[in-house]
């Protein structure tokens, strides 16, 4: 169809403007060599090197932020999973009156604006004295904030555990542990991985809580980038930081998408 063809070309053009140009510019800026600045009379940077990357990755400030972010994320994800499993089991396998309402209510953390949660959760944690360790306070807040995703994914997984498998394992005399291994775990595994990963990614990206609760001295990659976009703005450094924040997450997200597909096979196979 010619119309579709024209639209397609138009959209590829928009795609270039939409993605390729912004990222292309960021990559170029991250490669600008410190010796010769990229002045407007040059279309491409006059001197290219990986110096900015080397400097940034060698910078202790970034190393601390990277360490914080990548320790925070798995900690928050494990906390979320621990809190999620009992509730997801109940929502997935026990029919009760008000289950739909309970499911809706689990979405609450996503509805309250991020900075409102950040500021008043900080006030609350201060009040109950739970700010001694910024790391644990931020990790716990992330766990709370991203519970809805994990509960959602895992209650679907629990629904998909097949009762006939459980019964068959029991009838064949399997111990509770063996029953869990053969009947529950295969159905839960993709969901567990997907929930872990989604909280991991969200935690790496989360800005409001890390910024408000963590300030002034607990930094993560987003808070560091925010600072570098503000008072001490150096374009090539900001470009490097942006790419450091984006690249790992894009890869993780692509893995997540595969996992979600297998965690929710009804999407691909059409079976309910």
């Amino acid at each position, binding site marked *: 169809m010619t119309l579709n063809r024209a639209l397609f070309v138009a*959209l590829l053009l928009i795609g270039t403007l939409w993605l390729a140009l912004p990222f292309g510019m*960021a990559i170029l800026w991250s490669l600008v060599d410190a010796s010769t600045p990229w002045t407007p009379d040059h279309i491409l940077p006059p001197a290219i090197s990986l110096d900015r990357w080397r400097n940034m990755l060698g910078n202790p400030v970034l190393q601390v932020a990277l360490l914080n972010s990548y320790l925070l994320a798995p900690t928050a994800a494990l906390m979320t999973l621990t809190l*999620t499993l009992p*509730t997801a089991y109940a929502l997935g396998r026990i029919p*009760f009156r008000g289950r739909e309402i309970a499911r809706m209510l689990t979405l609450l953390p996503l509805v309250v604006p991020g*900075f409102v949660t950040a500021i008043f959760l900080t006030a609350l944690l*201060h009040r109950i004295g739970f700010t001694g360790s910024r790391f644990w306070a931020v990790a716990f807040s992330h766990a709370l904030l991203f519970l809805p995703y994990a509960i959602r994914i895992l209650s679907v997984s629990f629904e998909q555990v097949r009762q006939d498998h459980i019964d068959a394992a029991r009838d064949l005399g399997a111990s509770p542990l063996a029953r869990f291994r053969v009947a529950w775990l295969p159905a839960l595994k993709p969901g567990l991985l997907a929930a872990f990963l989604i909280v991991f990614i969200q935690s790496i990206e989360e800005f409001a809580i890390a910024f408000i609760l963590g300030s002034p001295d607990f930094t993560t990659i*987003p808070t560091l980038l925010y600072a570098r976009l503000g008072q001490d703005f150096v*374009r090539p450094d900001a470009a490097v930081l942006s790419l450091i924040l984006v690249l790992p997450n894009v890869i993780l997200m692509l893995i997540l998408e595969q996992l979600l597909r297998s965690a929710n096979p009804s999407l691909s196979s059409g079976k309910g």
Partner: protein
Amino acid sequence: MSTRAHPVWPKLRLLALLASGLGVILVLIGAVAWIALAQSFGLHNPMGEDRLTLDHWEKMLDRRLYLRAVGYSLWLGFAAALISVALAYPLAIWLRRPFRGSALVSAVLQAPLLVHGLVAAFLFVNIIAYHGLVNQLMVALGVWAEPRQLQNDRNAWGVLILQVWKNLPFALLVLSGSVRAIGDDILDAARDLGAGAFARFRRVILPLSLSALQAALTIVFIGALADYSFQVIAGPTNAQSLAQLMVFSRARSWHEAAVVGVTLMVLSLLGAALIAVLSRALRLRGVL
């Protein structure tokens, strides 16, 4: 389920199971809302004495800065929601049935979902900088005699562009799911009955994807209403968004920040309610 049919303990067990996840959410998010509300009325003062008062509300409601922030954030919220959805809807319909290359188009359009908001802000600011790509191009083409100051523009076009860049993919994702679920047979039937493209949209697609439309509008609205990062990095310097005002006034007074925080929550709810009422009205009309 009647109460008598079940002994007490399965109920206790259910409650215990729900307490871990749902309970934590209800208690903590409830506490967050309560602290904001209480502080806005002078209670829970972290620095001094508690005193129940309307002073903080009166003071803020009198302040031009506050009123302008309310207007500005509401405008941003609705504009971002409407533009994102208006652009995403035709795309979702176009991409309803797969064709050669449609997967690539979807992927390109949805890629911003993977990009952090702060990174998006940087990418954008980088392109519209004084010596950035846009200025260079316009000057080279002779449209502009000299580079212009595009960053932090007074009309907040920059923030709006960023909001749409970040939220259109999301609206597309939500709308695609529900537009794709509409069967071919019903659209073919409408076509056979003589319905044109617009009539098919109005009578078939719109009513059948209305709840997705409502969800997309609501979520984009709340996100843009409460935006902080885009506004601080790319927004006009003569206007403040509510989230920005809240963060800044916290340095001076928790109570004033709380007034802004409660305002944000109330406006989110009101906006969501308004969108719900409008889509219900549309649903009733669409069925007729």
